[in-house]
Protein backbone atom coordinates (compact mmCIF):
# COMPACT_ATOMS: atom_id res chain seq x y z
CA UNK A 1 0.00 0.00 0.00
CA UNK A 2 1.45 3.37 -0.94
CA UNK A 3 1.33 6.44 1.24
CA UNK A 4 -0.89 8.30 -1.19
CA UNK A 5 -3.79 5.83 -1.19
CA UNK A 6 -5.23 6.30 2.28
CA UNK A 7 -8.65 4.99 1.31
CA UNK A 8 -8.87 1.20 0.94
CA UNK A 9 -9.13 0.28 -2.68
CA UNK A 10 -10.69 -2.66 -4.48
CA UNK A 11 -7.19 -4.06 -4.84
CA UNK A 12 -6.74 -4.05 -1.04
CA UNK A 13 -9.98 -5.91 -0.72
CA UNK A 14 -8.85 -8.47 -3.26
CA UNK A 15 -5.52 -9.00 -1.45
CA UNK A 16 -7.23 -9.53 1.88
CA UNK A 17 -9.96 -11.73 0.45
CA UNK A 18 -7.45 -13.89 -1.43
CA UNK A 19 -5.21 -14.19 1.61
CA UNK A 20 -8.15 -15.17 3.81
CA UNK A 21 -9.36 -17.86 1.42
CA UNK A 22 -5.80 -19.18 1.21
CA UNK A 23 -5.45 -19.30 5.01
CA UNK A 24 -8.81 -21.07 5.43
CA UNK A 25 -7.81 -23.57 2.75
CA UNK A 26 -4.47 -24.27 4.42
CA UNK A 27 -6.18 -24.72 7.81
CA UNK A 28 -8.73 -27.10 6.25
CA UNK A 29 -5.91 -29.14 4.71
CA UNK A 30 -4.44 -29.57 8.21
CA UNK A 31 -7.62 -31.21 9.53
CA UNK A 32 -7.07 -34.69 8.01
CA UNK A 33 -3.35 -34.52 8.77
CA UNK A 34 -4.08 -33.98 12.45
CA UNK A 35 -7.27 -36.04 12.74
CA UNK A 36 -5.61 -39.21 11.43
CA UNK A 37 -3.70 -39.42 14.68
CA UNK A 38 -6.84 -39.76 16.80
CA UNK A 39 -8.09 -43.29 17.64
CA UNK A 40 -9.20 -45.06 14.46
CA UNK A 41 -12.48 -46.92 13.93
CA UNK A 42 -11.02 -50.32 14.88
CA UNK A 43 -9.56 -48.92 18.10
CA UNK A 44 -12.88 -47.33 18.99
CA UNK A 45 -14.73 -50.57 18.21
CA UNK A 46 -12.31 -52.53 20.38
CA UNK A 47 -13.13 -50.10 23.20
CA UNK A 48 -16.73 -51.37 23.51
CA UNK A 49 -18.09 -52.18 27.00
CA UNK A 50 -17.00 -55.40 28.72
CA UNK A 51 -18.96 -57.50 31.21
CA UNK A 52 -17.41 -58.96 34.34
CA UNK A 53 -18.85 -61.66 36.58
CA UNK A 54 -18.18 -60.80 40.22
CA UNK A 55 -19.05 -64.19 41.76
CA UNK A 56 -15.50 -65.65 41.82
CA UNK A 57 -13.96 -62.60 43.52
CA UNK A 58 -13.46 -63.41 47.19
CA UNK A 59 -13.73 -60.80 49.90
CA UNK A 60 -10.39 -58.99 50.20
CA UNK A 61 -9.41 -59.88 46.64
CA UNK A 62 -8.55 -57.43 43.87
CA UNK A 63 -8.77 -58.52 40.24
CA UNK A 64 -7.58 -56.73 37.14
CA UNK A 65 -9.52 -56.69 33.88
CA UNK A 66 -8.74 -54.70 30.76
CA UNK A 67 -11.03 -52.17 29.15
CA UNK A 68 -9.69 -49.96 26.35
CA UNK A 69 -6.18 -51.16 27.12
CA UNK A 70 -6.45 -49.80 30.64
CA UNK A 71 -6.33 -52.03 33.71
CA UNK A 72 -9.58 -51.87 35.71
CA UNK A 73 -9.19 -52.87 39.36
CA UNK A 74 -12.22 -54.59 40.90
CA UNK A 75 -11.76 -54.69 44.64
CA UNK A 76 -14.08 -56.78 46.81
CA UNK A 77 -13.45 -54.76 49.92
CA UNK A 78 -13.52 -56.08 53.46
CA UNK A 79 -15.56 -54.41 56.23
CA UNK A 80 -12.37 -52.93 57.61
CA UNK A 81 -11.32 -51.43 54.29
CA UNK A 82 -14.71 -49.78 53.92
CA UNK A 83 -14.52 -48.41 57.47
CA UNK A 84 -10.98 -47.13 56.88
CA UNK A 85 -12.12 -45.33 53.76
CA UNK A 86 -15.10 -43.74 55.51
CA UNK A 87 -13.62 -42.55 58.78
CA UNK A 88 -11.34 -39.92 57.17
CA UNK A 89 -12.14 -36.25 57.22
CA UNK A 90 -12.98 -35.74 53.54
CA UNK A 91 -12.13 -32.04 53.59
CA UNK A 92 -8.54 -32.82 54.57
CA UNK A 93 -7.85 -34.85 51.40
CA UNK A 94 -5.86 -33.47 48.45
CA UNK A 95 -8.73 -34.32 46.09
CA UNK A 96 -11.74 -34.33 48.43
CA UNK A 97 -14.35 -36.95 47.61
CA UNK A 98 -16.31 -39.17 49.99
CA UNK A 99 -16.07 -42.94 49.67
CA UNK A 100 -19.85 -43.09 49.14
CA UNK A 101 -19.47 -41.10 45.93
CA UNK A 102 -16.86 -43.57 44.66
CA UNK A 103 -19.03 -46.70 44.80
CA UNK A 104 -22.55 -47.53 43.65
CA UNK A 105 -25.02 -47.08 46.52
CA UNK A 106 -25.81 -50.34 48.24
CA UNK A 107 -22.74 -51.94 46.66
CA UNK A 108 -20.25 -50.55 49.15
CA UNK A 109 -18.02 -53.64 49.00
CA UNK A 110 -17.47 -53.35 45.24
CA UNK A 111 -15.00 -50.77 44.24
CA UNK A 112 -14.22 -50.39 40.54
CA UNK A 113 -11.28 -48.16 39.57
CA UNK A 114 -9.11 -47.38 36.58
CA UNK A 115 -5.78 -48.67 37.86
CA UNK A 116 -3.65 -45.96 36.29
CA UNK A 117 -1.77 -43.59 38.51
CA UNK A 118 -2.94 -40.03 37.87
CA UNK A 119 0.65 -38.84 37.99
CA UNK A 120 2.32 -40.30 34.91
CA UNK A 121 0.32 -43.41 34.08
CA UNK A 122 2.03 -46.29 35.89
CA UNK A 123 -0.01 -49.11 37.40
CA UNK A 124 -0.21 -48.96 41.19
CA UNK A 125 0.18 -52.08 43.31
CA UNK A 126 -2.94 -53.16 45.21
CA UNK A 127 -3.00 -53.78 48.99
CA UNK A 128 0.14 -51.78 49.57
CA UNK A 129 1.31 -48.41 50.76
CA UNK A 130 0.75 -46.69 54.07
CA UNK A 131 -3.06 -46.82 53.83
CA UNK A 132 -3.14 -50.42 52.62
CA UNK A 133 -4.79 -49.18 49.44
CA UNK A 134 -2.65 -48.66 46.34
CA UNK A 135 0.95 -47.63 45.92
CA UNK A 136 2.57 -46.49 42.69
CA UNK A 137 6.12 -47.81 42.40
CA UNK A 138 7.17 -45.25 39.79
CA UNK A 139 7.11 -42.02 41.74
CA UNK A 140 5.73 -43.00 45.12
CA UNK A 141 2.08 -41.90 45.05
CA UNK A 142 0.01 -43.45 47.86
CA UNK A 143 -3.75 -44.08 47.54
CA UNK A 144 -6.15 -45.26 50.26
CA UNK A 145 -8.67 -48.12 50.16
CA UNK A 146 -11.03 -45.85 48.26
CA UNK A 147 -8.39 -45.10 45.64
CA UNK A 148 -8.07 -41.52 46.83
CA UNK A 149 -4.69 -39.82 46.61
CA UNK A 150 -3.17 -39.33 50.07
CA UNK A 151 0.55 -38.69 49.46
CA UNK A 152 2.98 -38.21 46.61
CA UNK A 153 3.04 -36.33 43.32
CA UNK A 154 -0.26 -37.58 41.81
CA UNK A 155 -2.77 -34.73 41.63
CA UNK A 156 -6.05 -36.67 41.61
CA UNK A 157 -7.84 -39.73 42.95
CA UNK A 158 -7.74 -42.90 40.86
CA UNK A 159 -10.49 -42.32 38.28
CA UNK A 160 -13.70 -44.34 38.15
CA UNK A 161 -14.64 -45.94 34.84
CA UNK A 162 -18.24 -45.66 33.65
CA UNK A 163 -19.93 -48.92 34.74
CA UNK A 164 -23.22 -50.29 35.91
CA UNK A 165 -24.55 -53.32 37.72
CA UNK A 166 -26.54 -55.59 35.42
CA UNK A 167 -27.51 -57.57 38.53
CA UNK A 168 -25.87 -58.13 41.91
CA UNK A 169 -22.98 -60.21 40.63
CA UNK A 170 -22.37 -58.80 37.19
CA UNK A 171 -21.16 -55.41 35.99
CA UNK A 172 -20.73 -53.86 32.57
CA UNK A 173 -17.74 -51.57 32.27
CA UNK A 174 -17.93 -48.80 29.70
CA UNK A 175 -21.57 -47.89 30.18
CA UNK A 176 -23.06 -45.64 32.84
CA UNK A 177 -26.29 -46.41 34.64
CA UNK A 178 -28.48 -43.58 33.34
CA UNK A 179 -30.74 -43.53 36.39
CA UNK A 180 -27.94 -43.15 38.89
CA UNK A 181 -25.65 -40.61 37.23
Amino acid at each position, binding site marked *: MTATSVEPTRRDFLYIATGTVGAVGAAAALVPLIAQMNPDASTIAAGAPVEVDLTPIAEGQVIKVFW*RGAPIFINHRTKKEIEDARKVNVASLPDPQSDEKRVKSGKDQWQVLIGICTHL*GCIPLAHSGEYNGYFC*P*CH*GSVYDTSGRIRQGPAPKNLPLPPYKFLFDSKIRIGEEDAAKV
Partner: protein
Amino acid sequence: MMSGHSTYQPQSAFMKWMERRLPIAGLVYSSFVSYPTPRNLNYWWTFGGILMFLLGAQLVTGIILVMHYTPHADMAFNSVEHIMRDVNYGWLLRYLHSNGASMFFVAVYIHMARGMYYGSYKEPREVLWILGVILYLLMMATGFLGYTLPWGQMSFWGATVITNFFSAIPLVGESVVTWLWGGYSIGNPTLQRFFSLHYLLPFVIVGVVVLHVWALHMVGQNNPTGVEPQSEKDTVAFTPYATIKDGFMMVCFCLVYAWFVFYVPNYLGHADNYIPANPSVTPTHIVPEWYYLPFYAILRAIPNKLLGVIALFGSIGILAFLPWLDTSRVRSAKYRPLFRQFFWIFILVTVGLGWLGSKPAEGGYVLASRILTFYYFAHFIIILPVLGWVEKTRPLPNSISEAILNEGLPLGASGPAPTATKN
Protein backbone atom coordinates in the same frame (compact mmCIF):
# COMPACT_ATOMS: atom_id res chain seq x y z
CA MET B 1 35.27 -13.28 9.08
CA MET B 2 39.00 -13.76 8.89
CA SER B 3 40.36 -14.00 5.40
CA GLY B 4 43.73 -13.98 3.75
CA HIS B 5 44.11 -17.72 3.37
CA SER B 6 44.23 -18.98 -0.18
CA THR B 7 40.92 -19.42 -1.97
CA TYR B 8 39.96 -22.28 -4.19
CA GLN B 9 41.63 -22.33 -7.61
CA PRO B 10 40.19 -25.12 -9.81
CA GLN B 11 43.00 -26.97 -11.57
CA SER B 12 41.41 -29.28 -14.11
CA ALA B 13 39.32 -28.13 -17.04
CA PHE B 14 36.36 -30.08 -15.69
CA MET B 15 36.53 -28.45 -12.28
CA LYS B 16 36.81 -25.02 -13.90
CA TRP B 17 33.73 -25.84 -15.97
CA MET B 18 31.92 -27.09 -12.86
CA GLU B 19 32.91 -24.18 -10.65
CA ARG B 20 31.19 -21.74 -13.01
CA ARG B 21 27.96 -23.75 -12.75
CA LEU B 22 27.87 -25.22 -9.24
CA PRO B 23 30.67 -23.89 -7.01
CA ILE B 24 30.41 -26.76 -4.53
CA ALA B 25 34.13 -27.57 -4.56
CA GLY B 26 34.87 -23.95 -3.71
CA LEU B 27 32.34 -24.07 -0.86
CA VAL B 28 33.89 -27.23 0.59
CA TYR B 29 37.37 -25.79 0.16
CA SER B 30 36.59 -22.51 1.89
CA SER B 31 34.61 -24.24 4.68
CA PHE B 32 36.83 -27.21 5.48
CA VAL B 33 40.26 -26.58 4.01
CA SER B 34 41.28 -22.94 4.01
CA TYR B 35 38.81 -21.95 6.73
CA PRO B 36 40.80 -20.07 9.39
CA THR B 37 40.52 -21.55 12.89
CA PRO B 38 42.01 -19.98 16.02
CA ARG B 39 45.47 -21.43 16.49
CA ASN B 40 44.97 -22.13 20.19
CA LEU B 41 41.98 -24.51 19.99
CA ASN B 42 42.36 -27.36 22.48
CA TYR B 43 40.94 -30.88 22.37
CA TRP B 44 37.62 -29.78 23.85
CA TRP B 45 36.97 -28.21 20.42
CA THR B 46 37.05 -31.57 18.65
CA PHE B 47 33.60 -32.75 19.76
CA GLY B 48 31.70 -30.92 17.03
CA GLY B 49 33.44 -33.12 14.49
CA ILE B 50 32.87 -36.19 16.64
CA LEU B 51 29.15 -35.37 16.80
CA MET B 52 29.02 -35.10 13.00
CA PHE B 53 30.66 -38.51 12.75
CA LEU B 54 28.20 -40.02 15.25
CA LEU B 55 25.22 -38.54 13.40
CA GLY B 56 26.47 -40.24 10.24
CA ALA B 57 27.05 -43.52 12.09
CA GLN B 58 23.55 -43.45 13.61
CA LEU B 59 22.00 -42.77 10.20
CA VAL B 60 23.88 -45.64 8.53
CA THR B 61 23.23 -48.21 11.27
CA GLY B 62 19.63 -47.00 11.71
CA ILE B 63 18.72 -47.24 8.04
CA ILE B 64 20.15 -50.77 7.97
CA LEU B 65 18.27 -51.82 11.13
CA VAL B 66 15.00 -50.70 9.53
CA MET B 67 15.59 -53.29 6.81
CA HIS B 68 15.17 -56.01 9.45
CA TYR B 69 12.89 -54.45 12.06
CA THR B 70 9.08 -54.77 12.14
CA PRO B 71 7.21 -51.81 13.63
CA HIS B 72 4.22 -53.67 15.06
CA ALA B 73 3.29 -54.16 18.70
CA ASP B 74 3.03 -57.95 18.23
CA MET B 75 6.25 -58.35 16.27
CA ALA B 76 8.64 -55.55 17.20
CA PHE B 77 10.20 -57.31 20.19
CA ASN B 78 10.78 -60.53 18.28
CA SER B 79 12.14 -58.70 15.25
CA VAL B 80 14.78 -57.09 17.45
CA GLU B 81 15.73 -60.53 18.74
CA HIS B 82 15.77 -61.68 15.11
CA ILE B 83 18.27 -58.91 14.38
CA MET B 84 20.36 -60.02 17.35
CA ARG B 85 20.39 -63.72 16.50
CA ASP B 86 19.69 -64.29 12.80
CA VAL B 87 20.73 -61.26 10.76
CA ASN B 88 24.36 -61.29 9.63
CA TYR B 89 26.21 -58.92 11.94
CA GLY B 90 22.80 -57.79 13.22
CA TRP B 91 24.08 -57.90 16.81
CA LEU B 92 26.90 -55.55 15.85
CA LEU B 93 24.70 -53.08 14.00
CA ARG B 94 22.16 -52.95 16.81
CA TYR B 95 24.77 -52.54 19.53
CA LEU B 96 26.49 -49.84 17.46
CA HIS B 97 23.16 -48.05 17.15
CA SER B 98 22.04 -48.35 20.78
CA ASN B 99 25.47 -47.50 22.21
CA GLY B 100 25.90 -44.89 19.48
CA ALA B 101 22.95 -43.04 20.99
CA SER B 102 24.69 -43.01 24.37
CA MET B 103 27.97 -41.91 22.82
CA PHE B 104 26.08 -39.15 21.02
CA PHE B 105 24.95 -37.81 24.37
CA VAL B 106 28.41 -38.20 25.93
CA ALA B 107 29.82 -36.10 23.09
CA VAL B 108 27.04 -33.52 23.17
CA TYR B 109 27.36 -33.03 26.94
CA ILE B 110 31.11 -32.42 26.57
CA HIS B 111 30.42 -30.10 23.63
CA MET B 112 27.84 -28.14 25.67
CA ALA B 113 30.04 -27.97 28.77
CA ARG B 114 32.90 -26.64 26.63
CA GLY B 115 30.60 -23.95 25.28
CA MET B 116 29.54 -23.02 28.79
CA TYR B 117 33.09 -22.96 30.19
CA TYR B 118 34.56 -20.80 27.44
CA GLY B 119 31.49 -18.57 27.04
CA SER B 120 30.93 -19.68 23.45
CA TYR B 121 27.27 -18.61 23.65
CA LYS B 122 28.05 -14.92 24.06
CA GLU B 123 27.65 -12.18 21.49
CA PRO B 124 27.86 -12.72 18.50
CA ARG B 125 27.25 -16.49 18.89
CA GLU B 126 23.74 -16.40 20.43
CA VAL B 127 21.98 -17.88 17.40
CA LEU B 128 24.67 -20.52 17.05
CA TRP B 129 24.07 -21.50 20.68
CA ILE B 130 20.26 -21.52 20.36
CA LEU B 131 20.50 -23.76 17.28
CA GLY B 132 22.58 -26.04 19.48
CA VAL B 133 19.85 -26.11 22.13
CA ILE B 134 17.32 -27.00 19.40
CA LEU B 135 19.62 -29.80 18.23
CA TYR B 136 19.86 -31.07 21.79
CA LEU B 137 16.04 -31.12 22.12
CA LEU B 138 15.74 -32.95 18.80
CA MET B 139 18.32 -35.47 19.97
CA MET B 140 16.38 -36.07 23.18
CA ALA B 141 13.16 -36.60 21.24
CA THR B 142 14.87 -38.93 18.77
CA GLY B 143 16.53 -40.92 21.54
CA PHE B 144 13.24 -41.32 23.41
CA LEU B 145 11.34 -42.42 20.28
CA GLY B 146 14.08 -44.89 19.41
CA TYR B 147 14.09 -46.41 22.88
CA THR B 148 10.39 -47.31 22.54
CA LEU B 149 10.91 -49.29 19.32
CA PRO B 150 12.17 -52.62 20.81
CA TRP B 151 8.80 -52.71 22.66
CA GLY B 152 10.23 -54.08 25.87
CA GLN B 153 9.00 -53.25 29.34
CA MET B 154 11.11 -50.10 29.65
CA SER B 155 10.13 -49.04 26.13
CA PHE B 156 6.47 -49.36 26.97
CA TRP B 157 6.53 -47.77 30.40
CA GLY B 158 9.02 -45.09 29.44
CA ALA B 159 6.69 -44.11 26.62
CA THR B 160 3.75 -44.16 29.05
CA VAL B 161 5.45 -41.85 31.52
CA ILE B 162 6.81 -39.43 28.93
CA THR B 163 3.56 -39.14 26.95
CA ASN B 164 1.71 -38.56 30.22
CA PHE B 165 3.73 -35.37 30.67
CA PHE B 166 1.19 -33.89 28.27
CA SER B 167 -1.74 -34.92 30.46
CA ALA B 168 -0.53 -32.21 32.84
CA ILE B 169 -1.77 -29.57 30.38
CA PRO B 170 -4.92 -28.04 31.93
CA LEU B 171 -8.29 -28.84 30.29
CA VAL B 172 -7.11 -30.44 27.04
CA GLY B 173 -4.38 -32.66 28.51
CA GLU B 174 -6.29 -35.95 28.28
CA SER B 175 -7.41 -35.30 24.69
CA VAL B 176 -3.85 -34.43 23.69
CA VAL B 177 -2.57 -37.69 25.16
CA THR B 178 -5.26 -39.75 23.39
CA TRP B 179 -4.29 -38.00 20.17
CA LEU B 180 -0.60 -38.78 20.72
CA TRP B 181 -1.38 -42.41 21.47
CA GLY B 182 -3.94 -42.93 18.72
CA GLY B 183 -5.90 -44.96 21.26
CA TYR B 184 -7.03 -45.11 24.85
CA SER B 185 -3.65 -46.40 25.94
CA ILE B 186 -0.19 -46.93 24.47
CA GLY B 187 -0.52 -49.53 21.74
CA ASN B 188 0.26 -50.45 18.17
CA PRO B 189 -0.81 -47.08 16.67
CA THR B 190 1.60 -45.39 19.10
CA LEU B 191 4.49 -47.67 18.13
CA GLN B 192 3.93 -47.10 14.41
CA ARG B 193 3.89 -43.32 14.64
CA PHE B 194 6.91 -43.33 16.94
CA PHE B 195 8.75 -45.41 14.37
CA SER B 196 7.84 -42.98 11.59
CA LEU B 197 9.01 -40.00 13.65
CA HIS B 198 12.17 -41.75 14.79
CA TYR B 199 13.07 -42.14 11.12
CA LEU B 200 12.16 -38.53 10.35
CA LEU B 201 13.88 -36.62 13.16
CA PRO B 202 17.51 -37.52 12.33
CA PHE B 203 17.04 -35.83 8.96
CA VAL B 204 15.60 -32.79 10.71
CA ILE B 205 18.75 -32.89 12.86
CA VAL B 206 20.88 -32.95 9.70
CA GLY B 207 19.04 -29.84 8.50
CA VAL B 208 19.57 -27.96 11.77
CA VAL B 209 23.23 -29.07 11.83
CA VAL B 210 23.64 -27.35 8.46
CA LEU B 211 22.23 -24.16 10.01
CA HIS B 212 24.46 -24.64 13.09
CA VAL B 213 27.60 -24.94 10.94
CA TRP B 214 26.47 -22.05 8.74
CA ALA B 215 26.01 -19.85 11.82
CA LEU B 216 29.41 -21.02 13.10
CA HIS B 217 31.09 -20.02 9.87
CA MET B 218 29.42 -16.61 9.97
CA VAL B 219 30.82 -15.70 13.40
CA GLY B 220 33.90 -17.91 13.52
CA GLN B 221 34.92 -20.23 16.32
CA ASN B 222 35.42 -19.11 19.87
CA ASN B 223 38.71 -20.18 21.46
CA PRO B 224 40.14 -20.83 24.94
CA THR B 225 41.03 -17.16 25.50
CA GLY B 226 37.61 -15.93 24.40
CA VAL B 227 39.40 -13.13 22.52
CA GLU B 228 38.49 -12.85 18.84
CA PRO B 229 41.34 -13.48 16.35
CA GLN B 230 42.87 -10.13 15.41
CA SER B 231 45.12 -11.05 12.51
CA GLU B 232 46.39 -13.96 10.45
CA LYS B 233 48.93 -14.65 13.20
CA ASP B 234 46.04 -15.80 15.40
CA THR B 235 44.68 -18.43 13.03
CA VAL B 236 45.72 -21.55 11.18
CA ALA B 237 44.02 -23.24 8.22
CA PHE B 238 41.35 -25.81 9.03
CA THR B 239 43.21 -28.38 6.96
CA PRO B 240 45.53 -29.85 8.04
CA TYR B 241 45.58 -28.39 11.57
CA ALA B 242 41.98 -28.86 12.70
CA THR B 243 41.25 -31.92 10.56
CA ILE B 244 44.19 -33.87 11.95
CA LYS B 245 43.36 -32.84 15.52
CA ASP B 246 39.68 -33.70 15.08
CA GLY B 247 40.67 -36.96 13.41
CA PHE B 248 43.00 -37.98 16.21
CA MET B 249 40.36 -37.29 18.87
CA MET B 250 37.73 -39.11 16.82
CA VAL B 251 39.90 -42.22 16.84
CA CYS B 252 40.34 -41.95 20.62
CA PHE B 253 36.60 -41.49 21.03
CA CYS B 254 35.90 -44.51 18.83
CA LEU B 255 38.07 -46.61 21.15
CA VAL B 256 35.67 -45.80 24.00
CA TYR B 257 32.67 -46.40 21.73
CA ALA B 258 34.10 -49.75 20.61
CA TRP B 259 34.84 -50.74 24.18
CA PHE B 260 31.17 -50.28 25.07
CA VAL B 261 29.97 -52.07 21.92
CA PHE B 262 32.26 -55.08 22.26
CA TYR B 263 32.74 -55.48 26.00
CA VAL B 264 29.73 -54.01 27.84
CA PRO B 265 27.04 -53.49 25.17
CA ASN B 266 24.19 -53.58 27.67
CA TYR B 267 25.85 -51.64 30.47
CA LEU B 268 24.05 -48.41 29.57
CA GLY B 269 20.74 -50.15 28.87
CA HIS B 270 18.26 -51.68 31.25
CA ALA B 271 17.64 -55.39 31.82
CA ASP B 272 13.85 -54.88 31.95
CA ASN B 273 13.86 -53.97 28.29
CA TYR B 274 14.59 -57.61 27.47
CA ILE B 275 11.12 -58.45 28.83
CA PRO B 276 8.38 -57.98 26.20
CA ALA B 277 6.06 -55.02 26.86
CA ASN B 278 3.30 -55.93 29.32
CA PRO B 279 0.52 -53.36 29.81
CA SER B 280 -0.61 -54.95 33.07
CA VAL B 281 2.67 -54.77 35.00
CA THR B 282 4.80 -51.70 35.62
CA PRO B 283 8.46 -52.51 36.37
CA THR B 284 9.12 -51.89 40.05
CA HIS B 285 11.91 -49.43 39.38
CA ILE B 286 11.33 -47.41 36.26
CA VAL B 287 14.17 -45.20 35.04
CA PRO B 288 14.82 -43.46 31.74
CA GLU B 289 18.05 -43.77 29.78
CA TRP B 290 21.04 -42.32 31.64
CA TYR B 291 21.18 -39.16 29.53
CA TYR B 292 17.75 -38.00 30.74
CA LEU B 293 18.37 -38.71 34.43
CA PRO B 294 19.15 -35.15 35.64
CA PHE B 295 15.88 -33.89 34.14
CA TYR B 296 14.00 -36.89 35.49
CA ALA B 297 15.29 -36.02 38.97
CA ILE B 298 14.02 -32.46 38.51
CA LEU B 299 10.59 -33.79 37.48
CA ARG B 300 10.37 -35.97 40.57
CA ALA B 301 11.69 -33.30 42.93
CA ILE B 302 8.57 -31.17 42.45
CA PRO B 303 5.58 -32.54 44.38
CA ASN B 304 3.05 -31.05 41.93
CA LYS B 305 2.43 -32.73 38.58
CA LEU B 306 2.00 -29.66 36.37
CA LEU B 307 4.83 -27.76 38.04
CA GLY B 308 7.08 -30.83 37.83
CA VAL B 309 6.56 -31.05 34.07
CA ILE B 310 7.09 -27.29 33.70
CA ALA B 311 10.33 -27.54 35.72
CA LEU B 312 11.51 -30.42 33.54
CA PHE B 313 11.01 -28.51 30.29
CA GLY B 314 12.15 -25.28 31.91
CA SER B 315 15.46 -26.84 32.94
CA ILE B 316 16.25 -27.45 29.26
CA GLY B 317 14.55 -24.35 27.87
CA ILE B 318 16.52 -22.07 30.17
CA LEU B 319 19.67 -22.98 28.24
CA ALA B 320 18.34 -21.00 25.28
CA PHE B 321 18.42 -17.84 27.42
CA LEU B 322 21.97 -18.39 28.63
CA PRO B 323 23.49 -15.70 26.33
CA TRP B 324 21.43 -13.07 28.17
CA LEU B 325 21.47 -14.57 31.67
CA ASP B 326 25.27 -14.43 31.77
CA THR B 327 25.90 -10.71 32.15
CA SER B 328 29.70 -10.85 32.11
CA ARG B 329 31.44 -9.39 29.07
CA VAL B 330 34.41 -11.71 29.50
CA ARG B 331 33.84 -14.97 27.63
CA SER B 332 36.36 -17.50 28.84
CA ALA B 333 36.33 -18.98 32.37
CA LYS B 334 40.11 -18.78 32.15
CA TYR B 335 39.82 -15.10 33.01
CA ARG B 336 36.85 -15.47 35.36
CA PRO B 337 38.12 -16.94 38.66
CA LEU B 338 34.72 -16.98 40.39
CA PHE B 339 32.73 -18.22 37.40
CA ARG B 340 35.21 -21.05 36.96
CA GLN B 341 34.39 -22.36 40.45
CA PHE B 342 30.66 -21.98 39.95
CA PHE B 343 30.95 -23.74 36.60
CA TRP B 344 32.42 -26.83 38.25
CA ILE B 345 29.84 -26.72 41.03
CA PHE B 346 27.15 -26.60 38.35
CA ILE B 347 28.65 -29.66 36.62
CA LEU B 348 28.75 -31.52 39.95
CA VAL B 349 25.14 -30.54 40.70
CA THR B 350 23.99 -31.80 37.29
CA VAL B 351 25.86 -35.08 37.71
CA GLY B 352 24.39 -35.31 41.23
CA LEU B 353 20.90 -34.82 39.84
CA GLY B 354 21.63 -37.58 37.34
CA TRP B 355 22.62 -39.91 40.15
CA LEU B 356 19.48 -39.01 42.13
CA GLY B 357 17.36 -39.60 39.03
CA SER B 358 18.51 -43.22 39.05
CA LYS B 359 17.47 -43.70 42.70
CA PRO B 360 13.94 -44.42 43.94
CA ALA B 361 11.83 -41.33 44.70
CA GLU B 362 11.76 -41.63 48.47
CA GLY B 363 13.17 -40.22 51.70
CA GLY B 364 16.49 -38.41 51.53
CA TYR B 365 16.77 -38.76 47.76
CA VAL B 366 13.73 -36.53 47.25
CA LEU B 367 15.08 -33.89 49.63
CA ALA B 368 18.48 -33.95 47.93
CA SER B 369 16.79 -33.68 44.51
CA ARG B 370 14.92 -30.60 45.70
CA ILE B 371 18.07 -28.90 46.94
CA LEU B 372 19.99 -29.64 43.74
CA THR B 373 17.02 -28.65 41.56
CA PHE B 374 16.92 -25.32 43.35
CA TYR B 375 20.64 -24.88 42.79
CA TYR B 376 20.35 -25.84 39.10
CA PHE B 377 17.89 -23.02 38.46
CA ALA B 378 19.70 -20.63 40.81
CA HIS B 379 22.85 -21.07 38.75
CA PHE B 380 21.10 -19.57 35.73
CA ILE B 381 18.71 -17.11 37.35
CA ILE B 382 20.74 -15.81 40.29
CA ILE B 383 24.43 -16.76 40.13
CA LEU B 384 25.20 -15.99 36.47
CA PRO B 385 23.54 -12.54 36.34
CA VAL B 386 25.05 -11.48 39.68
CA LEU B 387 28.54 -12.80 38.87
CA GLY B 388 28.68 -10.56 35.81
CA TRP B 389 28.35 -7.53 38.04
CA VAL B 390 30.46 -8.46 41.07
CA GLU B 391 33.23 -10.60 39.63
CA LYS B 392 36.71 -9.08 39.25
CA THR B 393 38.00 -10.70 36.07
CA ARG B 394 41.64 -11.20 35.18
CA PRO B 395 43.12 -8.98 32.44
CA LEU B 396 42.48 -10.29 28.94
CA PRO B 397 45.38 -10.73 26.51
CA ASN B 398 45.46 -8.38 23.55
CA SER B 399 45.44 -11.24 21.10
CA ILE B 400 45.51 -15.03 20.90
CA SER B 401 49.18 -14.95 19.83
CA GLU B 402 50.12 -12.84 22.83
CA ALA B 403 48.33 -15.22 25.21
CA ILE B 404 50.12 -18.21 23.71
CA LEU B 405 53.57 -16.62 23.65
CA ASN B 406 53.17 -15.56 27.28
CA GLU B 407 52.20 -19.00 28.46
CA GLY B 408 54.27 -21.19 26.16
CA LEU B 409 52.84 -22.99 23.19
CA PRO B 410 49.88 -25.25 23.97
CA LEU B 411 49.88 -28.82 22.75
CA GLY B 412 49.10 -29.07 19.06
CA ALA B 413 49.99 -25.49 18.16
CA SER B 414 53.75 -25.95 18.24
CA GLY B 415 56.10 -25.57 15.32
CA PRO B 416 55.95 -23.12 12.48
CA ALA B 417 52.18 -23.37 12.07
CA PRO B 418 51.26 -19.69 11.61
CA THR B 419 54.00 -18.92 9.11
CA ALA B 420 53.47 -22.12 7.16
CA THR B 421 49.92 -21.17 6.22
CA LYS B 422 50.79 -17.71 4.99
CA ASN B 423 51.84 -17.95 1.41
